[in-house]
């Protein structure tokens, strides 16, 4: 076994022993169920909460409503919880000093960064697939999904945005070496992207469009080509941030 695989195995064991696997599986399964469930019961709830005698004309929910719930729950609740769970991947090791022995044994610093990124990315993939597949199956049970356009591509945009946020958190966590460093970097970046989105023309590249505009893909209102810029910028940003994390960690005094 080479050191990279050995350290990845350690990361996996640690994540399982610290209940990350369990938490991610439970939270994202609940979210997967919640999306179609919320879409299904919303009309009934609204009718119940309206004053008696009020005539409401609520259209019957469709598969689109279920997936709009997905867009609301997974990035807002799921991604936030995920980032909180994985926001101290590096600072925890630096605080405790657990890396010192292994680094003096010849463990490459780039191995530490890349294995942590891979384990985080793997967890995000697992979390996303769980929420997606449960939502898909549950939605298919109630509604016809053939009305949806580009479903796989539309949800991939959310997936990529989540991966970008995780990479940014890992970078902040490594540079500032505190639990709050990564969170602060992610929050500030999201605020900056939302502010940038207020200016015309930025939607051609702004990664926040992967979240805010991609529901339009489902309805067929937004052409795929609108997302080329944000997708390329996000992939580029992930690569640059990962490289910057390795660079910073190589220079870090332990």
């Amino acid at each position, binding site marked *: 076994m080479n050191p990279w695989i050995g350290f990845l195995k350690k990361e996996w064991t640690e994540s399982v*022993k610290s209940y990350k696997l369990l938490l991610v599986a439970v939270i994202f399964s609940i979210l997967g169920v919640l999306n179609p469930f919320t879409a299904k019961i919303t009309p009934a709830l609204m009718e119940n909460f309206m004053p008696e005698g009020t005539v409401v004309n609520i259209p019957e929910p469709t598969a689109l409503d279920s997936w709009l719930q997905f867009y609301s729950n997974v990035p807002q609740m799921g991604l936030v919880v995920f980032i909180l769970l994985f926001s101290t991947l590096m600072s925890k090791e630096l605080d405790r000093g657990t890396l010192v022995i292994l680094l003096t*044994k*010849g*463990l490459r610093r780039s191995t530490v960064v890349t294995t942590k990124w891979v384990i985080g990315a793997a967890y995000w993939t697992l979390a996303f697939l769980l929420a997606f597949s449960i939502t898909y199956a549950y939605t298919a049970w109630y509604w016809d999904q053939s009305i949806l356009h580009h479903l796989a591509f539309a949800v991939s945009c959310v997936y990529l945005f989540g991966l970008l946020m995780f990479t940014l958190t890992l970078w902040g966590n490594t540079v500032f070496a505190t639990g709050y460093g990564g969170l602060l970097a992610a929050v500030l970046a999201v605020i900056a992207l939302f502010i940038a989105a207020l200016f015309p023309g930025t939607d051609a590249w702004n990664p926040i469009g992967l979240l805010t505009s991609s529901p339009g893909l489902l309805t067929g209102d937004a052409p795929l080509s609108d997302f080329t810029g944000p997708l390329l910028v996000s992939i580029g940003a992930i690569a640059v941030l990962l490289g910057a994390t390795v660079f910073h960690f190589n220079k870090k005094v332990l």
Partner: protein
Amino acid sequence: MIIEVKNVTKRFGANEVLKGIDLAIPERTICGFVGANGAGKTTLMHCMLGLIPVTTGTITIAGTPVTFGQTASNEHVGYLPDVPEFYPFYSARDYLDLCAVITKLPKSESSTRIAELLDLVGLSGNKRVISTYSRGMKQRLGIAQALLNRPKLLICDEPTSALDPAGRAQILSILQEAKKETAVFFSTHILSDAEQICDRIAMLHEGRLIFNDDLHRLDEQTSGEFAFTFAHHTIEETRARLADYPAELRIDHGALIARLPGDEARLSFAKELANRGLVIETMQPHKKPLEDVVMEVLR
């Protein structure tokens, strides 16, 4: 030489922690690195491990230059930090397995080597996870991991400082055993520990190396003292009868301590005792505790 430190200076901002350190340690020796807390011992060790960059100077370990960050010299080194931290969910064996993978120890060799080391440090058969370990057990596991790849140099930072007497004795005995295969460079402010097992002493004071030589040379440099007891006379009487003798005399722990540097001084003192009718009962070199010697050097 296993370690060669040449003119190493380390500054943290305006604070110069290491001031032109020159240090050379031969192979297969145990060198005690003594100095008060804050003298710069850990800083020099971290420089040797490439964990922090030096401001000026060079460090070579087993002929390989130390560089900051990824340093090839670490393949010759085993390191035990002052508070070794491990992954709490692993057992000792699991942790050593991880270390074996990282040091690229061949699979065929690693199992035997791990068993051998767990036996050496008294952790064989212990299947508990590290989170349940005492400080002493962690320290012993720390030594096992440091010796895993048969390093040419073992660097230990205050390995005994937080242990009870039994734990300290165990660690010192393991370090002495390790000397068969490797040089040991260990820092301590417990001078009696250094005195027990070291061949050499390097002494750091306010960022400067003020002594680096064999332990017995440290005694020679400051000593030349002999302890006498006498038949028929009490020590106080003897001291009074030698009041006019031109040598430094004092009473310590029921013996007359005479400072007699060189053979001439010893011969002349023996003659004088005979002339004054003082019969020697016992005579032996007066070995000072290292604490006293260090204080003398610092003065």
